[in-house]
């Protein structure tokens, strides 16, 4: 296993347990995920916290073991075969990441730890050259803290200010307000594709086109869209797009920042260190080319390779198939949960994906989470890193179920039954 393993990511996602081509087979898919066979409190686990992180198919787990067993070497500059093979596998994963979001070139993909680091990188490196005192950055009220705080830090460093596009009580963007937020000082619009707290799918093309009409570049937070819908950055026409590997069945600690080549080329490096330089003397260093100038130090090689395999796995099923299946399942879940009296769904936007946030009369979300956990059902409770959203709805927290393509109607039924237990305890 040497030369052959270097090509393994290309085949890896499909070699282990391939769902039948062309047919969406939920039972076969479920069997690919070892963790879904485990129990919680002695009951078969129902995992409905996919917006936080996804489970991993066997193919990804096997790829990590294969990498460390057969291919582990530091990448780039290694003269020996093993290093060259590891480099090829790592760069092959970059190709897959680019194809996954239909980026024009893999050279526009910067590997990072995840969406959070990607946004921090953009805020630090792009912000440094483009955002100055008095400039403005537009965000929305439904952003995850990771698409708020990096810009706040940038604003504090530079004297820029943040402007916020509000949401409606349905959890939709107030697009009628967007035009009013643009000023000659607007430098960037940073906005989420899909809300992790509400499930709202934003009309991203329309937003980008409106911003571009004002000459304002757009960063799209794709942490919640990459797992659920086909993403095409050329079609969206955004300038930056970020996503996390661990939310799309890949390992933790790997994700990607995509930006247009000319933007990346003009950006300053993020961190300094090995691999990101072209030459170093004590007087002056010059930078490696894009994307390497943003990848200082030994990167998460295994993570990137695992991400490549995860992408193979998802595209093997088909993101359009995943979207269709999840929409049906979400409709079923909405119907089931809406039928529970004393339960109120937060976020009723027309276009939603994968997420249902809810509250219950007289029961704190934390208690809902604890009791459904006792029934073997994992959901998240809290503010979901979206305190401004909670403030909008005047609630301290919500309970949130978020699904993936490996969930099924039985999972939703188990959640609904567990919520009945909540009522038993508290009513």
């Amino acid at each position, binding site marked *: 296993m040497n030369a052959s393993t270097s090509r393994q990511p290309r085949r890896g996602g499909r070699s282990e347990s391939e769902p039948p081509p062309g047919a969406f087979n939920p039972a076969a898919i479920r069997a690919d995920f070892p963790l879904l066979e485990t129990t919680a409190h002695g009951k078969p686990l129902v995992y409905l916290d996919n917006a936080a992180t996804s489970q991993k198919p066997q193919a990804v787990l096997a790829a990590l073991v294969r990498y460390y067993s057969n291919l582990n070497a530091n990448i780039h500059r290694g003269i020996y075969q093993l290093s060259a093979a590891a480099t090829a596998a790592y760069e092959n994963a970059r190709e897959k990441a680019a194809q996954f979001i239909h980026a024009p070139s893999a050279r526009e993909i910067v590997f990072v730890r995840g969406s959070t680091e990607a946004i921090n990188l953009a805020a630090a490196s792009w912000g440094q050259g483009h955002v100055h005192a008095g400039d403005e950055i537009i965000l929305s009220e439904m952003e995850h803290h990771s698409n708020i705080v990096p810009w706040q830090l940038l604003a504090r460093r530079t004297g820029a200010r943040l402007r916020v596009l509000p949401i409606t009580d349905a959890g939709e963007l107030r697009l009628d307000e967007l035009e009013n937020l643009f000023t000659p000082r607007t430098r960037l619009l940073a906005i989420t594709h899909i809300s992790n707290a509400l499930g709202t799918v934003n009309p991203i093309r329309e937003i980008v086109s409106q911003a571009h009409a004002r000459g304002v570049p757009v960063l799209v937070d794709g942490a919640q869209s990459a797992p659920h819908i086909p993403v095409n950055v050329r079609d969206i026409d955004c300038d930056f797009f970020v996503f996390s590997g661990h939310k799309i069945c890949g390992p933790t600690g790997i994700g990607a920042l995509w930006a247009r080549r000319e933007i990346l080329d003009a950006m300053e490096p993020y961190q300094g260190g090995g691999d990101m330089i072209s030459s170093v003397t004590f007087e002056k260093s010059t930078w490696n080319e894009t994307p390497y100038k943003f990848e200082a130090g030994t990167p998460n090689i295994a993570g990137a390779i695992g991400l490549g395999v995860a992408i193979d796995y998802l595209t093997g099923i088909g993101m359009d198939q995943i979207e269709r299946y999840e929409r049906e399942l979400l409709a079923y879940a909405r119907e089931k949960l809406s039928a529970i009296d004393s339960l109120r769904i937060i976020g009723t936007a027309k276009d939603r994906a994968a997420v249902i946030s809810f509250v219950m009369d007289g029961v704190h979300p*934390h208690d809902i989470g604890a009791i459904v956990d006792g029934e073997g059902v994992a959901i998240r409770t809290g503010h979901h890193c979206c305190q401004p959203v909670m403030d909008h709805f005047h609630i301290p927290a919500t309970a949130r179920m978020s699904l993936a393509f490996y969930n099924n109607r039985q999972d939703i039924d188990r959640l609904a039954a567990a919520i009945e*237990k909540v009522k038993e305890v508290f009513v």
Partner: protein
Amino acid sequence: MSDLRELYQQTILDHTRKPRNFREMPDANRAADGHNPLCGDKLKLFLKIDDQGIIADISFVGSGCAISTASASMMTEALRGRRVAEVAELFAKFHDMVTRPLDEQQETEALGKLAVFAGVREFPVRVKCATLPWHALQAAIKKDHVPVSTE
């Protein structure tokens, strides 16, 4: 569910539904906020400590889960009329009860009704909920006559 019943005792649920001493205290001479950002629990604790160092009055307001609300409610009942000097030891005992394994438990007699929170021990993620009001209490006591503002 047996474990969960240990956690959600009837006494606890009763205090959650009808928290005692749930009110602002305009003439308090100590106050502090307790905040658990993880679950969004927020409470404000009010104290009136007299010249003898006795807790003459204690109350709270805020929103939280069943465990933090009941803990705050029962804490206020347990502490009214007690000496401030006793608080540290009582909290230490309470903290032990909700965090240490059963076989390492000290006697919990001193805790009186608060012993109902012993079930929290089986749910480590809920320790923060049960101890939130106690942390706010300690902060309030440490503060030197902080005027209660509406913030």
